[in-house]
Structure formats: structure tokens, C-alpha cells
């Protein structure tokens, strides 16, 4: 009976994550528009976009292969599974032992692998641009993320996100320099991976400025809806990771009962709103950088993560 309840809670987390992801993106767009003194699209517009796309007919290029048709489902599935494994309102859920942070990073890598291949499938030059730039960004962002994961797991003694979140709330860690460096590095990687300004512009369709948009140029209909949903989920995943590791207070622990879960959900929604607001302000204030400056940017993130890990290796008294 308890197992069935735990399974229900885990399933609930999966569905909540899927339901909240478009709302987060809609909220960020609304705040950005307001900061630019525009009305902006309604808050629920991403849901309407997804519904509209899903009902449309898919237009496939003549030489698109089975990989092009299967890729959106795989991209969506891997990103959804990764997002569902990050603690949102409660830690220690029943399947959180299945994958730790390294596995979550690798799952996002799988999604990116399929996306880059789909970009190359039709054989246009736009797809090639997107895929090659995306793999260059990934070749620096993934190691930077892994170094941040190393730092966090060295501090917490585990690579499981639930354990990391639990030990961050505990007394043993305090304000460490490596944590500050890891936070800065994680924010830089999150910006790069989610294709936000200053790395990529999510609202543009100009060749010079696009990376993510270039890879999905040929997609339409339900395929495009799935890929858009996957990018919403990815943003939610990164915000959830930052929230559950660096602002862990208020998260329920598995088994505390329904009211603790509801309270955790409310606090989680508040954290999402705060993060969305900060992201919108940051994107409005800063300008997009040149493509080859992105490698310096992510190289700096890798260096910060590496420095954080190095400081932890050196300061261990054991």
C-alpha cells in the first residue's frame, strides 16, 4: 500500500513538472515584455501554442528519414524523464535512486545528441550550422556542469540530488567558497544550455544568431510541439536544480504526508516565480555575445567549476 502511494506521488511529480514547464516560460516572456514596456503575450500562451501545433499536420521534407520522425519523441521522453527525477516539492521519492546528477546530465546529453542528428538529417546548411554550434557549446557546457556536480557531491558525500538537497539544509556545510563558485558556474551553464541570452536568442529566427532554432528549422506540427515542450522542460529542470540545491528550504521529504507536499509545492512555485523574474531581468539587461565568445564564456564556467573542485580537494582535512 505504501509502495502504491509512493508510486502515485512520483507519478504526480512527473505530471506536475510537465504541467508547470510551459507556465514558467510564459511567465518569463511576460516579465520580459513588461520590462520592455510592452503588454506581452498572455501567461498561458505557451499552452495554446502547444495545443495548436499538436493539432496541425506535419510537413516532412522529401528526404527526411525515420530518425527525423522518431527523434522528437525520444528528445521529449529523455528530457521529461530527466526533469521528473529532479526533486521539486519533495526529495527522496521512490525512483530518485534510479539516476543521480551525472545520469541526469547524461540524459540531457542524449536529448542533445538526437536533436543534433535531426538537424543534420534533412541536409540543409541551416541544420548544419545549428548542430555544429550546439556541439561546440555542449563540448564545454557538459564538462562545466560535471565539475559543478563534482563540487556538490564532494560537499554532500553523494551524487544523488535528494541527498545533496538534504545535506545542504543541514548544518555541516555553511557558506563555502566552492559553493559560491559552483553557483556562478551552474548559472552560466544553465544559460548556455537553455539557449538564453547572452548565448543564444530564443526569440529570433536570424541565421547569425540562432543555434537551437537552426536545428529545429524543418520541424512542424506535433513534432515541433514535442521539441518545444522539451525545451520548456529543460528550463524547468535547470531552475529546479538550482532551487533544490542552493535554496533547499521548504522542500518536503518523502513520507511526510499530503499537507507537507502541498506546502512544498507552494514554496516550489514561489521559487520558480523568483527565478523566472531574475532570468527575465538578466536577459533584458545584457546583450547577446558573438558565437566565438561563447567558448570563452563556457570556458570560464569550466574553470570556475574546476577551481571549486580543486579547492575542495585541497581543503579536506581527512
Amino acid at each position, binding site marked *: 500500500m505504501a509502495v502504491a502511494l509512493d508510486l502515485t506521488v512520483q507519478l504526480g511529480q512527473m505530471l506536475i513538472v510537465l504541467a508547470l514547464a510551459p507556465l514558467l516560460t510564459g511567465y518569463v516572456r511576460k516579465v520580459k515584455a513588461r520590462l520592455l514596456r510592452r503588454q506581452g503575450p498572455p501567461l498561458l500562451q505557451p499552452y495554446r501554442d502547444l495545443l495548436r501545433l499538436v493539432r496541425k*499536420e506535419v510537413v516532412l521534407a522529401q528526404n527526411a528519414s525515420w530518425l527525423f520522425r522518431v527523434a522528437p519523441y525520444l528528445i521529449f521522453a529523455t528530457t521529461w524523464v530527466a526533469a521528473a527525477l529532479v526533486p521539486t516539492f519533495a526529495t527522496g521519492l521512490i525512483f530518485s535512486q534510479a539516476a543521480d546528477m551525472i545520469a541526469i546530465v547524461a*540524459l540531457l546529453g542524449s536529448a542533445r545528441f538526437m536533436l*543534433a*542528428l535531426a538537424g543534420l538529417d*534533412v*541536409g540543409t546548411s541551416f541544420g548544419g550550422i545549428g*548542430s555544429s554550434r550546439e556541439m561546440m557549446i555542449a563540448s564545454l557546457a557538459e564538462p562545466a556542469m560535471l565539475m559543478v556536480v563534482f563540487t556538490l557531491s564532494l560537499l554532500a558525500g553523494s551524487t544523488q540530488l535528494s541527498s545533496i538537497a538534504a545535506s545542504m539544509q543541514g548544518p555541516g556545510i555553511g557558506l563555502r567558497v566552492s559553493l559560491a563558485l559552483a553557483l556562478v558556474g551552474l548559472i552560466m551553464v544553465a544559460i548556455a544550455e537553455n539557449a538564453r541570452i547572452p548565448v543564444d536568442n530564443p526569440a529570433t529566427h536570424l541565421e547569425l544568431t540562432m543555434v537551437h532554432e537552426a536545428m529545429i528549422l*524543418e520541424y512542424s506540427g506535433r513534432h515541433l510541439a514535442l521539441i518545444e515542450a522539451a525545451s520548456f522542460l529543460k528550463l524547468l529542470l535547470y531552475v529546479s536544480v538550482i532551487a533544490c540545491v542552493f535554496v533547499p528550504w521548504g522542500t518536503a521529504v518523502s513520507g511526510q504526508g499530503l499537507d507537507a507536499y502541498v506546502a512544498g509545492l507552494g514554496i516550489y512555485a514561489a521559487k520558480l516565480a523568483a527565478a523566472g523574474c531574475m532570468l527575465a531581468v538578466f536577459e533584458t539587461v545584457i546583450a547577446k555575445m558573438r558565437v566565438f565568445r561563447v567558448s570563452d564564456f563556457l570556458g570560464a564556467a569550466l574553470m570556475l567549476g574546476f577551481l571549486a573542485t580543486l579547492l575542495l*580537494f585541497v581543503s579536506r582535512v*581527512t
Partner: protein
Amino acid sequence: MALAGLLWCIATLLGTAVAAIAMARHRSATTLVYGVALCACVIALAMAGWSLLTLNSLGQALTLPVGLPWLGAHFRIDALAAFFLLVVNLGGATASLYGLGYGRHEETPGRVLPFYPAFLAGMNLVVLADDAFTFLFTWEFMSLASWALVMAHHRRPGNATAGYIYLLMAGFGTLALLLAFGLLAGPAGGYAFDAIRSAQTASLAGAVLVLALVGAGSKAGLVPLHVWLPLAHPAAPSHVSALMSGVMTKVAVYGFVRIVFDLLGSPVWWWGGLVALLGGVTAVMGVLYALMEHDLKRLLAYHTVENIGIIFIGLGLALAFEANEMPGAAALGLTAALFHVFNHSVFKSLLFFGAGAVLTATGERDMERLGGLIHRMPFTAFAFLIGSAAISALPPFNGFVSEWLTFQAILLSPALPQWLLKFLIPAIGALLALSAALAAACFVKAFGVSFLGRPRTEVARDAAETDRWSLASMFVLVALCLLAGILPGYFIDALAPVSQALAGAQLPRQEQLDWLTIVPIAQSRSSYSGLLLFLFIAMAAGVGAEVIHRWASAATRRSAPWDCGFPDASPVTQYTAGSFSQPIRRVFGSVVFRAREEVHIPPPGDASAARMHVRLHDVPWDVLYVPTAKLVNLAADRLNKVQFMTIRAYLTLVFGALVVLLAVLAVWQ
């Protein structure tokens, strides 16, 4: 019992080799040779697997009265040998299955068929050898058999040079190993491995490590001794390339593990640091080389270098932990490295088989002359895709599990007390993470440019799918990639006797954990369940597809590509391998290879084509090999004068040697 059976299988292989010399021209020679090799390898695989899993007949030894008269030829099967026999014979079986189909396209079977079973026999014998002479003899036999296979198509441009460099490096490696064994045997001269283990000479152990690293490392492909690998591996026929990359490099790893972990006694802390550092540098350099390549088989050969680097990182960590009396962590490092040995042999063979299929179908190895093969060769494309995903360490496949285990071993290393290790190991962790990300980029390029897009040449447009035997061997390996990713606990348990014998501890038993999770250290620390992830992903994809197709729309229409409204009829305008890797070449290559691009654009009005040149400098080659070759040539020119002296000069030389010997004798008294 198992040992005798294995030796009989090897004898069958040798007999087949001899027979093939005679009847190579016969019509059914190909089928016969590969068929016998397949059977022999499958039987050997079964026996090795049975003895590893049931721990039966481990420790059996046998001495044959061949070889040196006072030594004989010792053979022994223990846990380490059983595991590597499993790897070797799995590779041999799948390569033979592939060869049943591929071998029919061979133009000169007489140059391939006799040496193929000899190569397999040699690799098996190296793993079974229990004394230094047998080890070195079979090691050289293995090298020579593979050299003959590399030279099978010796008229093709570049193959003769490849064979020459291969022979040089193989000889150099054997010399280093000979010196290592000499130091191990000591002045008493006991060359049997039992004698070496019980002698426990601690002197010059560091020199033995360096010699073993040079000798075994050059065969495995450690930077900077890797230069022969990307020349020789692609020159051989494709199933032999798979064997050389996937299996022979693992036999070299076996040699290193046997000498350093088994024969050398307790390690010193800096050994681990040195090995892991070499591994880290090799991993990054290998994948950066691979990114600059557009020959499919050379790219795969450079990737072998990268994965050998990953294996040596695990081995180095295990040595460092063992030197600091942390047997549990050493077991983790060793298990991670050995699991990666198995995984790499599986997916590298798969990738080489795919490349061989492409080569047979189109006659091209250059990616920039391929494209669109996913439509013409769908099964090969699927198998190559799974292989690419596995080698890029993507869950739920097997490459991810061994990299995950290596990362867990790195996360255990803050407990090491030495300062240099404290600084080195995070750097090696960063290098490992970098190489994993770059490997994914490289395989997006390899698969995307060769199989996706539009065909760039006629041969790509007219390619046909390969035969059933090749496809069967590829799909066996695909199934293994998935199984090893979903059921890693069984593999870790199978490796337990090996790590117990070498590191003195083993990982906790994995088989009774729920949902086939693996827990390498402790439940509170980290866990991974490949099966759950696979099920989750399948369920999520299935549910998503079902919901959308049922309640939204399933309509599809074909049309011309959108391409932002600028459709391009010519397939020349799609991205090539060079253009795909240009951002990475600019970021990393300008530092590591001093990559420079020059573009010549003709003046306006001139209708000739624009040209772009990319110049890369291979730093180890320019710094290490070219000066050494010049030095050797210089010395040879000088010494050549000895050929042309007068009789009086020769007499003077003889007299001088005699006087020097007498003087040494006098002083030494």
C-alpha cells in the same frame, strides 16, 4: 579441464591457419576458415565465461615441453585471464561471423585467410601465457600476424608506410617489455610468473612500471606512442581493424595489468598519478585528433586511443588507491577500467563493422563523399547509430555505465593524502568530462555526415545494404550494448573475482538489489538503474506518441525542405565533416594542433572555385618522431663508414676490443 579445452581451440585455429596457406585459392576457403574460426571462438568464449562465472578451474596450470628447454611453455587460467579470454573470443566470434559475409568481397584471400586464425590464436595465447618467454613469443606472434594482415592490400597508397611504422613500434614495444621482464626476473633469472611473484624484488620497480607503460602502452595506443594506430588500423580489412582496435589493444591492457598489478607487488603512490595523467592526456588528445579527421576508419582508430585513455585513468586510480591502502576504492577503479575494456571492445567492433559495410557498399572511406546512407542501408545505419550512442556514453547504453563508475572512483579520491594527487585528480576528472563531451560531438559528425543528409556522390546514392552475416554480427553487438547498459550488475558481479585477486577487495554483490540498480560504494552515496531509465524513457515516448496520435493529429505530408525559403538543389551546400568540426577546431585545435585556416578567394569576375586550406601540426610527431628519425639516419650514415674500411683498420678494431676487455677484467678483479 577448461585450460585444456582452450588450448585445443587454439590448436584448431593454428591448424586452420596452416591449412589456409595451402587452400586459399579454393572457392569455399573463405566460408571454411571463418566458419571454423567462429566455432572455435564460440567454444572458447563459452569455456572462459563458464570458468569466470562459476569460479571453476581457475588456477589451473599446464606446462608444455616446447620453447626454451629449461623453461618450457607455461599456461595458466586465472580470473584475469578468463575475463580477457572472454573479451578476445567475443571479438573473434563476431569478427568471424562478420567475415563470413565480408570475406567474400576480398580480392586477395590468400593474404588474409592464413593469418586471420593465426592472429586469433596469438591473442588467446598471450592471455594464457604464464611465463615471460611464452608471453613475449606469443606477443610477437600476434604482432606479426596482424602486420601481415595490415599489409594484405599493400599496393594501396599509404598501406606500406603504415605497415613499416607498425612494425617499428611493435618491435620497440617488445623491446621495452623484454627489459621489463628482465628486471622482474632479476639476477636469479626465474622467468616463470610464479617465480617472479615469489621473488618480490623491490629494486627498480619504478623502472619496470615505466617500461611496462611504454611497452604495453605503445601497443594499446597511449599518447605519444599512438602514431602507428591511426595508420595501421584503417589499412587492414574491416573485420581485422575491429579485432585490432577492439581486441588487440585490450590484450595490451591485459599485459599492463598483469605486469603492474600482479607481478610487481605493492605499488608506490606516484605510479597511479603518472598512469592516470597519461590516460587523461591520451583521452583528450585522441578525441581531438578524431574530430579533425574525415576518414571514417581513421576517426574510429583515434577514438580507440581516447577510450584506452579512459581505461588507463581507471587503472591509474586503482594503483593510487592501492598504494594508499584503500582496497575498496581500488576495486572500484579496477572494475570501472575492466568494464570499459569489455564495453569498448563491443561498441568499437560494432562501429568498425558498420564502417566496413559502408566501405563495401560504396568503396569510400571519406565521409565527405558519403551522405544519405540511412535511406539506402537502413539496418547498418541503425546499428551504427546504437554504436555511436553507446560510445558517446549516453544512457541507457553500456558506455555510460563504465564512465559513471570511473567518475565515482574519481569522487572517492579526496581521501588520498599526497598533495600532487590532490591537484592531479580533479584535473584528470575535468579532462575525462571534456573527452566525453567531445566524443559525442565527434560521433554526431561521423554519423550525421556519413548517414544523414543528402548523398554527395554517385556511389553514395547507389549504395546497397550489406549481406546477412555482417548484419547478424552487428545486431548481436547492438543487443550486447543494450544488455550491458540495462543489466550492469551482472557484469560487475562477474568482475568480482578479478578485482578480488588483484586489488584485494571487491564491490558489493549487485544482483539482489531491486530493479537491477548498481550501488558501487553505498546506497547513500550513489546508485544507478539502467533498467529503470530505459523503461521510463520507453514509457514516456510511448505514452507521448499514443496520446498525441489518438487525440491530436497523426497526419503527415511530404514536401520540399523549408530551408528558410532558400532551397538548395545541390547537395554540395550541406555541411561537410570539416565544416561541422570548424567551431571545435577553432576553439581547441588552434591551441593543441596550431590549426590555421587559409582561404583563397578568386577576384570578382573569375569563375574558378575558392579554396580553403586547413593546416594542422601533429605535435608528438613533429617533436618526438621526426627528430628521432633524423638522429637515427645521421647515426646510420656515420656508422656506415665501418663497411668500407681497410683490412688494417678491421684488425685494429679487433685488437682494440681485445685490449678493452682485458682491461675491464683487470679492473673488475
